[in-house]
């Protein structure tokens, strides 16, 4: 039934044994392990000392509140971003040290300080972490926080499922982290190669780690996409017709449609690889009737939609930030929506451009080359639309705007090189080369830039205070410099014909470029320091930077119509939507009341610990499968199924917030901001007609424009 393994196996511990703990005998990992253990102890100690375990459990670990889940997603993303960056640093250092046949070697390596086996693991970990455990959670977290706010919903359609998605992703991330200290990770690229990832050529547990971490994340992301689509379709506030949706919500819808349709294919491609590795089937083997190109096809049918899954929310973020800081509505709203869906649609027909060189017929290559170029049309349209949004506006260069504009310029560079890659004849020259690497790093840095912009932009909405700008600007400029220094040489090297994943570069002539890239990495490290300073200073001075509901003064969409930080129920009374940029329209007409007199009881989902426990069992299942500890896997599966069934028997999954408590919360939000009277309310720059202040204390009799029934034309009220 099961395949024959190299190396020992015991029923109790599977393949696990003392030799499999590299922190016992590899210096780099020893130090890392010490630091991680220390950090873990510090965190646990701090929480215990402050007596916050109960708060953590009740407020965060068991929460089903979409904002807190989003924040936790973003935290996972940031932690993994750091880890991925550390990997990138090690790759760069190795390549800078190992140039030319006479470069010295240390620690068992011939050149540089990492053996091929290790740098392979670092490459794979860097790629997988950055794509699946950094960019994806960051974006999913942002969508989780913002989308329900933008459509005027109280929560997601399925809050419990939302938490499930989070803990599955966390389980995958934990598995990648575990691979650092227990056993080893996959030592190929971040996307598998078959037959290289078959048991014959990757006999260790690395590929299994990679596979199960990937699989958990895929399941989590699929669940999340179901949730977000259902939320957007079903949970919109009355009057929120399709053409009044904020653009970020549109972007989320298109991106989640991509995720929904493509992630299952990834699951299949990984599951078949798993069958090959565990049961000895022949899906992807070179011999015995397997077909190794099948894996490439299946994987990239997911893989290319996946990168658009990452970039569409980034475009959505840019489309939110640029109008806000241009103090003007978005140019060509309908076009933007069409372009998003066009990108999503085309994404399904381009996957073959990842392996133009596999000797497909020229007609096939031509087809995929042309479809790949088609992506350039909607993307180009988007760029022009952003430019025309700024045109005749009043552009304010605050941090979010700077990030968004950086993203725009990176998109120009990345788009241009993308068009070069789409040219299949060029691809024959630099397929698998550093040029391609530089191209997609331009694209993911665009995503990263818009994520940083989004964090700056929506941070006050979630936490109630703005981030300071001085350190933030330093961080921004060092990121720009670092990007230039790392990737311009990379483009040049790519044209010179350097390929990916080399642990040793045989040509001494390339050394200067490597050293310039090292400078770039050093700049990135400084940027990281500034980023930490930025966070620290912001936290320290948070009382000086308290944000009103409309934190930037020129917000346009619905999320700026509730307090910062957002109360758990989002909106005390569900708003009724009248126009596309509802909040901007209300400000123009002086309708800036945030509450409507009498409050009503609000129905909300209850916290539950089930998703966390199920996530933990999934981690145990994946860990057991990785090490082939069959009893652990079996117990985990049984427990997961039991938990799911038992949860379905729970009846008290909801609660109701009484109106008195809603009123108390609303009052508290206002009193935090304006402890005395309204006299010292700052007037915003860029306020439009009427007062730009968001809060006026009214008594219940002074209701403004409250009606209980929507009797408007064009206002579709959901059932």
């Amino acid at each position, binding site marked *: 039934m099961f395949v024959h393994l190299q190396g020992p196996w015991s029923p109790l511990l599977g393949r696990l044994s003392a030799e499999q703990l590299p922190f016992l005998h590899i210096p780099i990992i020893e130090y890392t392990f010490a630091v991680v253990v220390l950090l873990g102890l510090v965190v646990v100690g701090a929480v215990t000392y402050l007596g916050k375990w109960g708060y953590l459990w009740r407020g965060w670990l068991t929460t089903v509140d979409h904002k807190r889940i989003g924040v936790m997603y973003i935290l996972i993303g940031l932690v993994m971003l750091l880890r991925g960056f550390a990997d990138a640093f090690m790759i760069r250092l190795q390549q800078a040290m190992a140039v030319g046949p006479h470069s010295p070697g240390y620690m068992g390596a011939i050149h540089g300080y990492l053996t091929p086996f290790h740098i392979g693991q670092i490459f794979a970990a860097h790629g997988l972490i950055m794509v699946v455990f950094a960019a994806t959670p960051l974006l999913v977290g942002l969508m989780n926080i913002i989308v329900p706010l933008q459509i005027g919903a109280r929560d997601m359609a399925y809050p419990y499922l939302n938490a499930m998605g989070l803990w599955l992703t966390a389980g995958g991330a934990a598995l990648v982290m575990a691979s650092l200290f227990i056993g080893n990770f996959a030592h190929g690229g971040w996307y598998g190669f078959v037959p290289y990832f078959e048991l014959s050529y990757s006999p260790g547990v690395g590929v299994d780690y990679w596979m199960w971490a990937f699989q958990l994340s895929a399941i989590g992301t699929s669940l999340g996409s179901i949730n977000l689509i259902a939320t957007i379709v079903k949970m919109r506030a009355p009057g929120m017709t399709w*053409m009044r949706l904020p653009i970020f919500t549109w972007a989320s819808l298109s991106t989640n449609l991509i995720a929904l349709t493509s992630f299952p294919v990834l699951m299949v491609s990984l599951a078949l690889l798993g069958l090959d590795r565990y049961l000895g089937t022949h*899906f992807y083997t070179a011999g015995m009737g397997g077909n190794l190109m099948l894996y490439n096809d299946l994987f990239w*049918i997911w893989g290319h939609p996946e990168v658009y899954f990452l970039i569409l929310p980034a475009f959505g973020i840019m489309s939110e930030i640029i109008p806000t800081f241009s103090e003007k509505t978005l140019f060509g*709203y309908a076009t933007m929506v069409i372009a998003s869906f066009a990108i999503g649609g085309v994404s399904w027909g381009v996957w073959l451009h990842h392996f133009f060189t596999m000797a497909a017929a020229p007609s096939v290559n031509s087809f995929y080359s042309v479809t790949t170029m088609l992506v350039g049309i909607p993307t180009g349209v988007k760029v022009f639309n952003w430019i025309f949004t700024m045109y005749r506006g009043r552009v304010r260069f605050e941090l979010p705007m700077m990030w968004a504009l950086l993203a725009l310029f990176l998109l120009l560079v990345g788009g241009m090189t993308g068009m070069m890659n789409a040219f299949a004849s060029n691809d024959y020259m630099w397929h698998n080369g550093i040029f391609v690497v530089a191209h997609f790093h331009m694209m993911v840095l665009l995503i990263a830039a818009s994520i940083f912009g989004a964090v700056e932009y929506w941070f006050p909405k979630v936490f109630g205070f703005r981030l300071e700008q001085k350190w933030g600007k330093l961080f921004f400029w060092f990121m720009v410099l670092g990007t230039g220094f790392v990737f311009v040489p990379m483009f040049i090297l790519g044209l010179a014909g350097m390929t990916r994943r080399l642990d040793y570069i045989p040509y001494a002539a390339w050394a200067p470029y490597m050293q310039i890239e090292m400078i770039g990495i050093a700049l990135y490290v400084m940027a990281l320091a500034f980023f930490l300073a930025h966070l620290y200073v912001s936290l320290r001075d948070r009382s000086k930077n308290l944000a009103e509901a409309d934190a930037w003064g020129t917000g346009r969409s619905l999320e700026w119509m509730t307090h910062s930080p957002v109360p758990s129920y989002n909106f005390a009374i*569900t708003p009724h939507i009248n126009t596309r*940029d509802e909040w901007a329209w209300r400000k123009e007409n002086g309708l800036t009341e945030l509450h409507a007199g009498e409050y009503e009881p609000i129905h909300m989902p209850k916290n539950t610990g089930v998703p966390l426990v199920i996530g933990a069992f999934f981690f145990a299942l994946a860990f057991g499968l990785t090490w082939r500890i069959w009893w652990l896997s079996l117990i985990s599966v049984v427990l997961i199924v039991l938990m799911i069934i038992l949860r379905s028997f729970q009846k008290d999954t909801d609660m109701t917030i009484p109106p008195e408590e809603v009123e108390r919360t609303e009052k508290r939000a206002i009193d935090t901001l304006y402890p005395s009277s309204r006299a010292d309310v700052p007037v915003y720059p860029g306020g439009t007609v009427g007062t730009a202040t968001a809060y006026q204390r009214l008594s219940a009799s002074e209701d403004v424009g409250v009606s209980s029934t929507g009797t408007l034309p064009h206002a579709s009220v959901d059932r």
Partner: protein
Amino acid sequence: MSSSAVSIDPKTASLWARHYPGHDFIGTRTFGFWLYMLTDAMVYAALFASLVVLSHASNMIGGPTPKNFINPIYAYGETIALFASVLTYGLAMVNLKKGSRSGVTGWILLSAILGVVYLGLSITDNTHLFQQGITPQTNGFLSAFFAIVIYHALHIVVGVAWMLVMLIQIATEGFSQNVVYRLINLRLFWHFQAVIWVFVFVFVYLQGLLV
């Protein structure tokens, strides 16, 4: 399409949806389940694509061609059992509309029994093949063949388990909102598996017989 086409008078516009009833619970749940089924359909699509890719003569190295080992009798029996099960489940839903607890329980029980019959046939068929040395480990084609057949059978297992859980819940809770939406989703799931079985039957069994 332009944003200022509809000008709403700010003086009379309604700003807050008071007493907004929220969303339709059962509708939202079933919509989500449709989305889940789309993902499952994509999984099947990928598996079928793999089967097509792995159906060439070169993928059948060291194993029999499907003509020689596929037993149409079993597959036909499985088809009848599954479709009958779907029919009985449909009758259960008719009884749900009437609100008859005993009717729903009885018909669902029958569906579950038919599901078990299907599984019995499937398991017998596959053990026969295994005994002849026709296993997923033989070659690429058989890997894909068994992947689809067994993946579908696993769905039936899940469906039968779900039915049993629902029987308990109907007995304990009656037709509460939760139970009703689960019954509707189970109907979707069960019909969907039958639809997939049509594809399995046609493209795996019948095509294997003819080609």
